[in-house]
């Protein structure tokens, strides 16, 4: 076995081990030099990214890859955890590492000079580790463990600006909501273990009987993961948390949120993939009921998100509410893909949903970075207190305009490409849903036009005369997102064909995921 092959074999473990070890090495590196710490953080995330890239090529060429922690043979007592990496998990892992790298680059200047940065980076890396763990693991209890790590690390990071009372309040709300949610996940896992004596997702999917307890477990998992993803009406923690944490932290919390959406996909398409087509009472297949439940929650999220965003005066909370609406678009696509399972447009909806996961974090992430840039130079959060910033912050203004057009789904930017697939497929399920989604996108455009006018246009305010453009590292982070938004908008097929379609195929072909574990070992 060559060195590269050895690295490839162990890459699922290394993807978790590198950020985890870095989390505890960073306080030591911090003692030497702040610049060395910053470089170390980027280098370690870059190295993790390289392993994700290596694993991506292998998964796309050879199918799902499993990695066993613990006993290789099935002799009792079996103590082991399986990581199973397929195209969908690797897709989400790519998004996570991209967000983490951009967030660290942004942090260089944004967090510069603040106290407790060694702890900040430790928590940051723990959060990245937990998100990657949730995405790569093939064990449902292990998923719960990483979910818990993400809750604790996120809570501490939300409260990072501890001197602001609202940050502490947001962190408190987050930990209460997350802990209660995690307990329900644990309860659902208990239901599986009690019935099937298994915790591996593929094994469970193979033996699942769809008993009444399984139905309860499905509801518990869907509701908790939906809440963690920010689905209305359980979304209220999201504007609080996103609005009060540093924007670089918001980016990694977004990746943890994305891991929850991934959890929903994994539960619906893999864990319950074999049984979801079962007809229940009134000759209604289960997938239709679950699909419509998700669609209703998605429409509520879109409506509440845009209506509440319109009246927000705090820029970061405003973006937080639009993030709720964007989660609604994701679930609208997922719901359509589930409800219309088997129809050709269901696959298009799934493509749109997975594509929108990437575009959503890109566009909302860019807007949060811009909001952070405004806060960095003005120390103001309220839109009423700012204005005329385009005169001094030309690059930031351009990035904001790209972000606002992209998030509102305006062509030819990336947001449009995924929303186009969602609108077209949802229209075939029910035209009214598609019309609501399009109208809400137009309201979203109106919301951000308001922000553009209030924050960037108009006369230079006397209190903001000394304002200058943000440092280069922050511009670089925003520029990367903006460039990607334009590039994906112009060449949507590159991402769609190379990453999105294989990810959707992996979800739809749940038998392959199951066979890799059940038939392979």
């Amino acid at each position: 076995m060559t060195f590269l092959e050895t690295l490839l074999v162990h890459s699922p473990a290394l993807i978790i081990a590198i950020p985890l070890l870095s989390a505890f090495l960073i306080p030591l590196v911090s003692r030497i030099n702040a610049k060395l710490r910053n470089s170390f953080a980027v280098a370690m995330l870059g190295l993790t990214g390289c392993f994700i890239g290596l694993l991506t090529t292998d998964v796309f060429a050879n199918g799902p890859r499993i990695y066993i922690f613990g006993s290789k043979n099935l002799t009792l007592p079996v103590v082991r955890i399986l990581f199973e990496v397929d195209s969908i998990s690797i897709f989400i892992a790519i998004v996570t590492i991209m967000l983490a790298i951009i967030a660290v680059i942004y942090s260089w200047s944004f967090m510069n000079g603040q106290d407790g940065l060694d702890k900040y980076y430790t928590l940051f890396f723990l959060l990245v580790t937990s998100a990657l763990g949730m995405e790569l693991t093939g064990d449902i209890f292990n998923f719960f463990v990483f979910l818990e790590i993400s809750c604790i690390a996120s809570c501490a990071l939300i409260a990072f600006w501890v001197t602001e009372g609202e940050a502490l309040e947001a962190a408190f709300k987050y930990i209460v909501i997350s802990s209660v949610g995690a307990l329900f996940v644990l309860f659902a896992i208990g239901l599986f273990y009690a019935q099937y004596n298994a915790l591996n997702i593929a094994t469970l999917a193979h033996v699942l009987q769809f008993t009444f307890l399984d139905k309860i477990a499905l509801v518990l998992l869907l509701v908790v993961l939906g809440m963690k993803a920010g689905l209305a009406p359980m979304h209220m923690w999201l504007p609080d948390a996103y609005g009060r944490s540093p924007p670089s932290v918001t980016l990694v919390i977004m990746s943890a949120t994305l891991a929850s959406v991934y959890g929903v996909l994994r539960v619906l398409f893999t864990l319950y993939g074999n049984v979801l087509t079962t007809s229940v009472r009134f000759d209604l297949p289960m997938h239709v009921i679950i699909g419509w439940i998700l669609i209703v929650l998605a429409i509520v999220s879109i409506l509440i998100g845009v209506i509440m965003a319109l009246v927000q005066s705090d820029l970061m909370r405003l973006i937080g509410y639009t993030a709720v609406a964007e989660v609604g678009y994701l679930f609208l696509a997922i719901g359509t893909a589930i409800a219309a399972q088997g129809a050709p447009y269901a696959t298009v909806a799934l493509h749109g949903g997975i594509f929108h996961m990437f575009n959503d974090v890109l566009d909302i992430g860019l807007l949060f970075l811009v909001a952070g840039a405004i806060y960095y130079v003005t120390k103001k959060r309220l839109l009423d207190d700012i204005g005329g910033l385009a005169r001094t912050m030309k690059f930031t203004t351009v990035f904001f305009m790209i972000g606002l057009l992209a998030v509102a789904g305006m062509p030819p930017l990336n947001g449009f490409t995924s929303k186009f697939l969602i609108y077209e497929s949802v229209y075939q399920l029910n035209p009214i849903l598609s019309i609501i989604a399009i109208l809400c996108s137009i309201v979203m455009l109106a919301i951000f036009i308001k922000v553009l006018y209030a924050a960037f246009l108009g006369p230079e305010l006397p209190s903001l005369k000394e304002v200058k453009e943000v440092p280069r590292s922050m511009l670089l982070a925003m520029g990367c997102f903006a460039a990607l938004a334009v590039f994906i908008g112009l060449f949507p097929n590159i991402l769609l064909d190379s990453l999105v379609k294989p990810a959707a195929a992996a979800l739809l072909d749940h038998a392959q995921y199951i066979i890799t574990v059940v038939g392979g070992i």
Partner: protein
Amino acid sequence: MFNLESGSGFWNPLLWILLLAIAFLLFYGIRGFGRNIYKKGTEQTKAFLSGNLESTPEEMHIKASNLYWGFTTAMKSLYAGLRKMHTGNTSDYLLWFVIVLAVLFLIIGVI
């Protein structure tokens, strides 16, 4: 490479950009037919407010909270309901979680 197929339609960003470029050229061409009578810094460019004094630009900047006033006022009752829902209390956040859980249990239980 540029054509995004949805099964029932397609999207081509290049076509869109081409259309935008043609529209821009068209408008630019039409603009060329106009007469250039604009003189910067003269009385011609000053605002006439029925004899009232013109406020400073800072005073004239419309704040974000004043934008879409008509829309938010027309939807007052909707916003009152939504504000009531968003109390900011953690116990209410959990209540919504329990409500959704209960409704889904009910649906799954009945079906």
